[in-house]
């Protein structure tokens, strides 16, 4: 007899067998890519090259090319940095936190979500490096290396330096977690490989993994510990990113709510990006049986929850500003809502607070079109959130004579486009050469969450099941 969940839909549908899983996931890796893949890659490369031209010009001439001035010294650069890092957080949440909570639905999406994390963090890392103006000495400035002008070290009291350690640790640990997860799947591809390139490429990447029970035992232990390490790590990363603002004395930034509020926002935007990517991948690679409506609904529920957390945080900020009695703080928030950047503030409120509430309706959270549309809306909203926090707090200085209005230049826009090109180029290369779904983990849940779970209820005599949960004869067919 097998115990069957009474509430969960099967996570893998379509009567898939273990063999089908291998076939379905390996097929895109082994076959020549479709024309649509080439088209998508070409568009990404065009964005990369066009943005790269502006970025090169920026590096040559200096960051004066951006629309920054002496009042608004940080604008799109740090906005894009926080936005990309935030997007990355969903991958770790899916692979690490959902692993600790034993959520089986993570298995179909964790591979692509982790890939997204790694590429998003690379895009994020572009910004702090470029904004230093002379990035070629950047590595030497930010790392704890002795300075040639004396033994002057980096300042370990600065949140900007904590960020260096947090982001590099986050990137490298995520990369390791992702790679260890990929090893068994590379071994599967290696053992099916029919071309010389695949035999050598996946042979090397699979590290000679053979699926022995002893290796699997240690592998499971390693995965669990990496998940345990990644969970506080991912929370620490966005906490430290929020410290970049919260430890300053700028009104609107100097608040203790920032760490939890940033982490919730990060998960919120990250899940939206996972949905955007997975809804496309699902259709292109025909993964409807692996990424089912159940998965999409789960992710939408997380967006709803984190979106509401973010909404409460926005309101809390206002209440605290009023309650503090500090007039600068009160002005900063009044200015956010009704000042020159009112349009950015209200875009943020609409996209982040109002639009995810639509997911209370089952019809909307189980609709692919609505989900896809709202996932993009949420990402726009989260970009505006960072823009609002950063620019509205800076553009009204303590001296009214230095009050300005920030307008982006072509370099601001095109450098942002560059990171999109980078992200999608990486993602499309990943989707072609790496298995987009974790085959080993999907196979591991097939027995108790696979396509046959309802049929296996036959093994429980129906009269032993409580009346409400009994399976109708038609469902058993």
């Amino acid at each position, binding site marked *: 007899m097998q115990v069957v969940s009474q509430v969960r839909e099967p996570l893998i549908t379509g009567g898939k067998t273990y063999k089908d899983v291998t076939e379905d996931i390996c097929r895109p890796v082994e076959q020549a890519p479709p024309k649509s893949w080439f088209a998508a890659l070409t568009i990404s490369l065009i964005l990369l090259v066009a943005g790269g031209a502006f970025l090169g010009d920026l590096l040559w001439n200096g960051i004066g090319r951006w629309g920054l001035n002496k009042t608004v010294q940080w604008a799109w650069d740090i906005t894009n940095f926080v936005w990309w890092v935030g997007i990355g957080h969903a991958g770790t949440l899916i692979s690490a936190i959902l692993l600790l909570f034993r959520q089986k639905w993570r298995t179909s999406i964790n591979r692509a979500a982790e890939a997204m994390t790694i590429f998003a963090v690379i895009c994020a890392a572009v910004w702090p490096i470029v904004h230093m103006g002379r990035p070629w000495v950047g590595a030497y400035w930010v790392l704890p290396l002795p300075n040639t002008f004396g033994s002057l070290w980096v300042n370990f009291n600065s949140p900007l330096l904590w960020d260096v350690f947090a982001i590099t640790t986050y990137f490298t640990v995520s990369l390791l977690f992702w790679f260890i997860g990929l090893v068994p799947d590379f071994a599967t591809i290696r*053992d099916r490989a029919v071309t010389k390139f695949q035999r050598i490429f996946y042979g090397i990447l699979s590290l000679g993994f*053979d699926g022995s029970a002893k*290796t699997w035992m240690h*592998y499971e232990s390693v995965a669990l510990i*990496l998940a345990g390490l990644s969970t506080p790590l991912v929370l620490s990363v966005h906490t430290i990113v929020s410290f970049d603002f919260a430890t300053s004395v700028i009104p609107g930034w100097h608040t203790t709510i920032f760490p939890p509020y940033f982490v919730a926002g990060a998960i919120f935007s990250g899940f939206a990006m996972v949905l955007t990517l997975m809804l496309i991948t699902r259709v292109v690679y025909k993964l409807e049986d692996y990424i089912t409506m159940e998965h999409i609904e789960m992710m939408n529920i997380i967006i709803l929850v984190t979106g509401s957390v973010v909404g409460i945080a926005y309101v809390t900020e206002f209440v605290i500003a009023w309650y503090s009695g500090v007039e600068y703080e009160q002005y900063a928030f009044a200015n956010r809502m009704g000042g020159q950047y009112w349009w950015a503030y209200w875009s943020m409120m609409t996209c982040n607070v109002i639009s995810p509430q639509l997911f209370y309706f089952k019809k909307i959270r189980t609709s692919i079109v609505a989900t896809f549309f709202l996932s993009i809306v949420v990402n726009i909203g989260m970009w505006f959130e960072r823009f609002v926090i950063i620019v509205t707090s800076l553009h009204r200085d303590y001296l009214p004579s230095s009050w300005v209005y920030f307008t982006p230049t072509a370099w601001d826009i095109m450098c942002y486009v560059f990171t999109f090109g980078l992200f999608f180029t990486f993602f499309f290369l990943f989707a072609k050469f790496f298995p987009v779904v974790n085959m080993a983990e999907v196979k591991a849940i097939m027995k108790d969450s696979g396509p046959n779970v309802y049929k296996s209820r036959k093994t429980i005599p129906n009269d032993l099941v409580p009346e409400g949960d009994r399976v109708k004869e038609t469902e058993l067919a």
Partner: protein
Amino acid sequence: MESNKHFVVGIFNDQDILINAVKKIRSEGVKIHEVYSPYPVHHLEHALGYKRSHMPVAAFFFGLTGTILAILMQTLMMGVDWPMIIGGKPFISIPAFVPVTFELTVLLAAYGMGFYFFITQDLGPTRVPRIFDRRATDDKHVMAIDLSENTRSEDELKVLLESVEAEESYRKDFTDEENEPSFGKYLIDVLTNGVTSSSRQLN
């Protein structure tokens, strides 16, 4: 009979049948060389009688190394080698050192354990696996029983495997070269004729 070269291989279709089979075969006094699965099968390691994984211990000590290194680095740099007055704060201010200490703890724990895993499990880019049955990374569980480690004959083992619902069972012999596969030979074989001791024929 030379050891590690002559095996009887049993193919299993289902994880529960496999675990029962492992328990039964071991209770009969037969030593199982290893079981290969396409995915981690829970409780298989208990059935095979493996000791608990030592990865958590490795992770703890690597993490501890990271903590100690991070605290030493920050106190020596900020407090001893080149003290600087920053906002009138103490030279060695422990709360400000917490984030970097935490990050380095995680970094060293993760990478220390990761490489400890690769090294102890003999995983590396130049490792060529010795493959009993290629379906072990696809859809079947493969049990290997070393003939030299057991007193029973090949036929007796096959009968035993079939009695515990193995789908099929056959004898597998490795040549010297297959037993100690070399990466250089693997590369040359792939490049010259596309086929190696551990791969199937090209289509």
